[in-house]
């Protein structure tokens, strides 16, 4: 092939070919895995997204419903913690999905989920703050 010439499949700009090229660049090549694995990865991504949405709703609920119970400082801290956790899990779930997809295409071992310990530590932190609050609160 000569410099400057384009492959026949690269000659179209715009349309499905350009989209396919964009997709394969993001996925860093490789071969399509079993479509069942691709669909399983998609469902796992959605499970993470729903977890993020639960954290999001939880953060909003703490700020909206616990005004009588928690002081403004503690309420804000817990709400922001939950919302930051929702942001990190929501964003991280996409990269988790992408990394699993890349690993399946290149037939390398699946990467460990980094968002799992983030969720565990974040959730434990919020729970610990609430436990301390319940114990320390005058009866």
């Amino acid at each position, binding site marked *: 092939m000569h410099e400057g010439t384009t492959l026949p499949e690269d000659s179209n700009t715009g349309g499905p070919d350009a989209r*396919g090229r964009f*997709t394969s660049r*993001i*996925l860093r090549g490789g071969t*399509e895995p*079993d*479509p*069942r694995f*691709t*669909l*399983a*990865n*998609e*469902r796992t*991504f*959605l*499970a993470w*997204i*729903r977890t*993020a*949405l*639960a954290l*999001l*709703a939880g*953060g*909003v*609920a703490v*700020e*909206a*419903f616990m*005004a009588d119970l928690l002081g*403004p400082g503690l309420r*804000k801290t817990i*709400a*922001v913690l939950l*919302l*930051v956790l*929702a*942001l990190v899990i*929501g*964003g991280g*779930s*996409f990269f988790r*999905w*992408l990394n699993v*997809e890349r690993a399946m295409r290149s037939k390398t071992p699946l990467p460990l989920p980094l968002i799992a310990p983030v969720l565990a530590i974040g959730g434990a932190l919020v729970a610990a703050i609430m436990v301390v609050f319940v114990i320390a609160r005058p009866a």
Partner: protein
Amino acid sequence: MASAPAAAQHGDSGLQPERTDLAWSRTTLAMVAAAAVFLRWLPHHGWFVGTLVGGAIVTALAINFTQKRRFRRAVRGINQESMPPNIGSTAAVAASVVILAALGIYTVLFLPLQP
């Protein structure tokens, strides 16, 4: 199953297209539930919360209206034993959650509670 449309027929005993379709549906419902919880903020934080409610509703509707397309794509993928991953849908939903969370953090930190 002879009466089912050809586009919806597949030979996957694991029912992968259907399970994936339902996973998207559950995500839509979670999005609507989040929008409902955001509504609780409306009297306390003012009109800005409308962007959160609206954002969640628009995302839920967008997922809902693209369900059939994704299901057909999954069936075609199973039948052809090859399927490109759905980057568009996953990136859009993840971006929506990130934006909603960022708007929520902004609301808690910078919009004071109105009496």
